[in-house]
Every structure is written in C-alpha cells, then in structure tokens.
C-alpha cells in the first residue's frame, strides 16, 4: 500500500498494489467516463429503483453521477488551489460511516464517507479514514444503490479497504489504538 499526497497537511489517498494510480485519480477517471458509467448502469439498471423518488433512466443516471462527481471533485479542487477553507472544509465533507452502529463499531470514529451533494445523485460515495481533525486518508469510491454496504460485493470490498488501511495507520500510530 502506498499513500499519495492530495492536499498537503489535510488530504491523502491510498494507492492499492493492484492499481496504477491512487484512488482519487481512479475515482476522477471513472466518474467522468460516460461510457463506463453507461455500462455500469445498464448492468445494474434494476438497482436504480432503490431511489424511488428519482427512478432515473440509465441516461439520467450517467448525467447525475457525472454532475455529482464534479461537485465532489470541485470541493477538493478549491482546497487544492487554496480557495476553500482548508481548516474546516474536510470535516464538513466527511461524515461517520457507521451511524447506525454508532460507538459499538470499532471504527466508528475513523471510517468516513463523503458525497458530492445529497440531491443530484445520492449514490456516490468516497471513503476515507479520519486520522485527526481535518486530516483524512482516502481509501476508495463506489456507487451505493443498496440499503446496506454488506448487500453489494463492491461495497464489501470498500469496507475491507477501510479495514486494512486502518490497520496500517494504527500500526504506524497515525490513529490511536
């Protein structure tokens, strides 16, 4: 596992051994590719019914996802260009992942998720381990079209990534035991 600097002193990203680039580059590449998104939503069109208030077509889902991804990347873009409020913004973007389990979950304080916006395509997720106030290490990204992460193999993989990143960061004392 390698860690890349995204925004100095606040945001970092994991590069997994099987990948050529870190996970934020992968996310930016994937979510801005209408062809790949089209393929994904054609394969999982049934899952789009999960959001009954939207019930988008495949074409709409691609447009929404891309727009959502742009919002998410734009927050980081502003921070990277020194336009945003570096000291507060990341803690506002990343929310606890295990809200339902609360403190009973061993990684309640560290596993987090970010969304671009909650209206356009509420299915985009970016996962990160929180190391400190406004200090995060990104582990991966996904499209969540199921009630629970355990219901989707891709999301289970993201949970495992969070787990192994946490183990590594604990080992080097980046997060407390």
């Amino acid at each position, binding site marked *: 596992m390698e860690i890349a600097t995204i925004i100095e002193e606040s945001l970092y990203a994991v590069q997994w051994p099987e990948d050529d*680039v870190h996970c934020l580059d992968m996310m930016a590449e994937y979510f801005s590719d209408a062809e790949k998104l089209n393929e994904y939503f054609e394969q999982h069109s049934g899952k789009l019914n999960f959001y009954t208030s939207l019930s988008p077509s495949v074409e709409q889902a691609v447009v929404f996802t891309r727009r959502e991804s742009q919002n998410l*990347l734009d927050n980081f873009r502003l921070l990277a260009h020194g336009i945003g409020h570096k000291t507060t913004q990341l803690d506002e973007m990343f929310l606890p992942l295990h809200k339902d389990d609360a403190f009973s979950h061993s990684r309640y304080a560290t596993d987090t998720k970010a969304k671009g916006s909650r209206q356009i395509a509420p299915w985009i997720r970016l996962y990160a381990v929180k190391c400190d106030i406004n200090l995060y290490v990104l582990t991966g990204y996904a499209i969540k079209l199921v009630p629970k992460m355990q219901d989707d193999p891709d999301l289970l993989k993201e949970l495992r990534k969070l787990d192994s990143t946490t183990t590594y960061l604990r080992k080097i004392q980046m997060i407390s035991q």
Partner: protein
Amino acid sequence: MNTTKEDKLLKLNLIATTSDEKASWLKQADWNKKHELALNDFSTIAIRILSTLKKRNMKQIDLANLLDVKPQALSRIVKGRQNLTLSKIRQIEKALDIRLITVTPEKLHRFQIELALDLRHIEYTQTKIAFEQQIQKDIHNAKICKESPTYSISPAA
C-alpha cells in the same frame, strides 16, 4: 500515548509520495469546471451515440471511419470528455442519421407563430368570402328554384 496532529503530519510527509506534475484528478476537476455548463450535454450526447451504435450493431471504429477521425478522438467523444463543436455534432448526426441538438432561434420561432396566425386569418377570410359568395349564389338560385338550402361553416384547421 496519543500522537499529536503535528507528529502525524510529520509521519505522513515521510511516507506519502508527492508528484511535481499536476495530478490527474485535478486536471479532470479543472476540465469539468471549465466545461461545467456543457457537461450534461457531453454526457447525454455520448450516451445517445453509444445507444445508437448498439441498436445498429455498429462498432466505434465504424463511426470513427465514417467521421474520418482517429479511434482515440471518438473515444473521447463517447466518454463525454470532448468539447464538441457544433460542426462535429452535425457530422455525427449526418453519419448516424440521428438528431442530437435542435437549435430554435427565438426570432424565427416568433416569425413562425406570426406566419401561422396570418395563414389562419387568410384561410378564415377566404372561407368567409367563399361562404358569402355561396350565399349570394344560392339566394340567386333560390329566387329561381324557390328552395332554401342549409349552411354550415367549419372552423379553420
């Protein structure tokens, strides 16, 4: 013992890699921002092209050949990552015999409405004149035949 944030940052700075080149995600984010207003259109056009190719059992290389562009250039278009010119859109429309964008200038639109209203007025006037002429003709005939025909007028289409 709890590690302070400063200690954590020191550790991260030791282990984390940095690149002198502009990061790929940042390039993409900047591009998205630059083309923000057309981003939805790029995606929609890409999906329309892909679905047309699929319906017609065509490959991307077939369209690239029809457009006389390199496969890489077409790939950027179907990924929604190409700032398309109107000219290129029209070329794609012609090659696939589909309509991707319709431009309706406001003045022409108003003109069309006014023209349609004028045509209806002319039609109405002509019908009215024809109707009156028919009445006169029938009155004239009635004087001869002493019959009284019934009349009706259809509303203009």
